[in-house]
């Protein structure tokens, strides 16, 4: 099967070529008329009485209608194709949009902001929203679909080659709409299976300072770390947050220093984000950041 993004590109190329021809024809005629009939270039005299011609009117009504009919038929083919064309997906992922992050569920395994998919396989997303309308768009992998609260929409993705594909929310969803980025890691089936297995495991609990600080503060009201008592559902699942490349849905690359800075003041990096400043001492911040980044 042809990836949806390729099918859309192919159609856009055909429509674009037709549009370019029309553009050249119409703008050419306009420029010709202006240059040819400028009064300064014409000998004195009265303009021609060229005021109506029913045949011409019929021609320039019918011709565009025929071109549009062709485009419409081509479109129907592409619509069927990107809709899946009856091919069952190799993987289904449930995606929920939140103000301003993404929740990805692979069956019981939940992660956030960074999704992995196997290459060479049709992946169907079941899209919904926890609050306002969002829209899922990774241009190189497929079209976009809005995500509405109370409704489930479907979108097919397909990656031919391994790599990182970036996208972001495309329906204005509030103050941090710009920092609701999607990172898709497309990898071989074997790598994907390994990743999914790792994501499915609970966090390695060592009872260290960082973990204790996390569990003793308001962090647990919103975040889950499987394997600990933290089971909040309002924010991203942090069980394997250290395995993700970015923080705050793309606003910062992830490492210990930035994790510390982010926890110390999320509003500095993502003003308006729903994560509050947590009053922690410097040593507490160090321990907490180190702990979270260690959750691979």
């Amino acid at each position, binding site marked *: 099967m042809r990836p949806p993004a390729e*099918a859309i590109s192919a159609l*856009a190329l055909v429509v674009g070529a037709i549009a370019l021809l029309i553009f050249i024809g119409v*703008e050419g005629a306009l420029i010709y008329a202006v240059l040819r009939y*400028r*009064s300064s270039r014409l000998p004195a005299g009265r303009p021609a009485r060229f005021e109506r011609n029913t045949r011409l009117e019929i021609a*320039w009504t019918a011709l565009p209608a025929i071109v549009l009919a062709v485009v419409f038929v081509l479109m129907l083919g592409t619509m069927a194709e990107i809709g899946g064309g009856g091919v069952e997906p190799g993987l289904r992922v449930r995606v929920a949009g939140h103000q301003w992050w993404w929740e990805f569920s692979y069956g019981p395994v939940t992660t956030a902001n960074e999704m992995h998919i196997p290459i060479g396989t049709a992946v169907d997303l079941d899209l919904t929203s926890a609050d306002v309308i969002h829209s899922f768009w990774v241009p190189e992998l497929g079209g*976009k679909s809005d995500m*509405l609260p109370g409704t489930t929409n479907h979108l097919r993705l397909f990656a031919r080659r391994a790599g990182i594909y970036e996208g972001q929310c495309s329906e204005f969803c509030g*103050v941090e709409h*710009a920092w609701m980025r999607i990172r898709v890691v497309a990898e071989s089936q074997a790598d994907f299976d390994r990743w999914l297995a790792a994501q499915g495991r609970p966090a390695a609990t060592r009872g260290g300072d960082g973990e204790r600080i996390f569990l003793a503060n308001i962090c647990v009201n919103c975040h889950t770390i499987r394997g600990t008592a933290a089971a909040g559902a309002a924010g991203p699942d942090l069980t394997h947050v250290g395995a993700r490349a970015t923080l705050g849905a793309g606003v910062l690359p992830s490492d210990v220093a930035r994790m510390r800075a982010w926890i110390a003041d999320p509003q500095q990096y993502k003003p308006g984000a729903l994560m509050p400043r947590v009053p922690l001492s410097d040593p507490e911040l160090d321990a907490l950041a180190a702990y979270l980044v260690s959750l691979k």
Partner: protein
Amino acid sequence: MTAIPLWVRRPAGERVGWLRTVDHKEIGVLYIGMGVAFFAVGGLEALLLRAQLATPESRLVDPLTYDQAFTVHGVTMILLAIVPLLVGFANYLVPLMIGAPDVAYPRLNALSFWLSLVGGIILYFSFLAGGAPDTGWFSYAPLAERSFAPGPGVDYYILGLAVNGAGTIIGAINLTVTILLMRCPGMAISRVPLFVWMTLVTTILILGAYPALTAALVMLFVDRQLGGHFFDPAGGGQAVLWQHLFWFFGHPEVYIMVLPAMGMISEIIPVFSGKPIFGYRFVAGSSVAIAFLSFGVWAHHMFAVGLGEMENAIFSATSMLIAVPTGVKIFNWIATMVGGRIRLTTPMLFAIGFIAMFVIGGLSGVSLAVVPIDLAVTDSYYVVAHLHYVLFGGTMLGVFAGGYYWFPKMTGRLLDEGLGKLHFWATFAGFNLTFLPQHWLGAVGMPRRVFTYAASTGWGPLNLVSTIGAAILAVAMVIFAVNLVRSLRSGEVAGDDPWDAFTLEWATSSPPPPENFPVTPAVSGRRPLWDRKHPELRDPS
């Protein structure tokens, strides 16, 4: 310097004043003044947006201010600038063009203007009253519900738009009745100038479309203030319902903003080609076709919502169909020029610019009607580019064409041609530099309404180009402002008929007397003034 009265040629010593006037010409000028003022404000908001986007991850403007700016920019340009400008020209010109002394209901006319203006003031009052709306001009639910937009901004949006819309609806009733009942003897509906034709179609569109917006606003108000759940899925409501109601208004609104400008250039192109319009009946009839179709295309704004493939395909077909009557107009305008003697005055340059730019907006519009392409680029900068090619490249260039063309009728003085041509070329260059690159930005993934973008996206250079274009556009508008002020004071005296034009507004003085025509004119063709000037060459009646 000759003393020339402005806007209306009143008997010496008679003063009415802007607040009391019920003269359609002065109310037209009030509307145009409102449009110009809000166009300037909306333009400054746009410059703020472009300044913020010039470089990636910029911190020039904070996200909340940015969101307020693009929300208010959209509402301002559409409802407080373009619509008042077009309604203003219609107010000034329609009675003159049909040989009437005024509109049907002069007092109601004043009411519609003042309601429209007060609506705008209410919207802007939000800045002082706790924050402007920040949910986008189409203000989708549930983002606009109180749970996600607790501030008063959306309430001011609701109230401002409802009041402004009431003014527009009343004005539309007035103009419809005027055109249907107040034409002078001989002015059959098949003889009225095309600007009047397209105004009539527009006012009927307003009567069909605006009430849907008003209803939606009332429902949103009920949700926000009275605990309703029309658009709140958590309470059993439907978020998509708002979109249906809004776009049932929103898409005809596009034609409400485009048709009168098309009417303007349908007056200007024939005059400066020295020929009657080509295919009058087809240009007029295609407007009616556009009006009909425009009520059946709204869901093309919602292809990504998940309405279903069948629904999407049907709305795609109706949306594509609109290209046919639109194309008919473009071909007829070009055919009008063919065989003519074209005078490249400033109004003609802007009219030609309208056609050239509208073709681009029309073609990108057809591409957006193709569902899979729409699914790729909807809600991206491609749409931003498209809509500006239609509304700026189209409507605003048409309004500038009309401005240069009718300014001498309203003021008795011509705008300066040298500055006018400079204004045109600077606008043309700045406009294309601003919006052409945005097609590409959208196609590669830049969503609209983002206050910034990651440096890693590589969108920086084209955004910078776009911002430079916006700066050039700003310079072009300054040139226009200079031209306006200078010409008002000391422009060349125009006389009654400076362009050797065809229609009745040029048969009276510049500016016209309060009663428009000392003697009610009688006409026998589509070009009454031409017939009067060239009895031997009069149009067949």
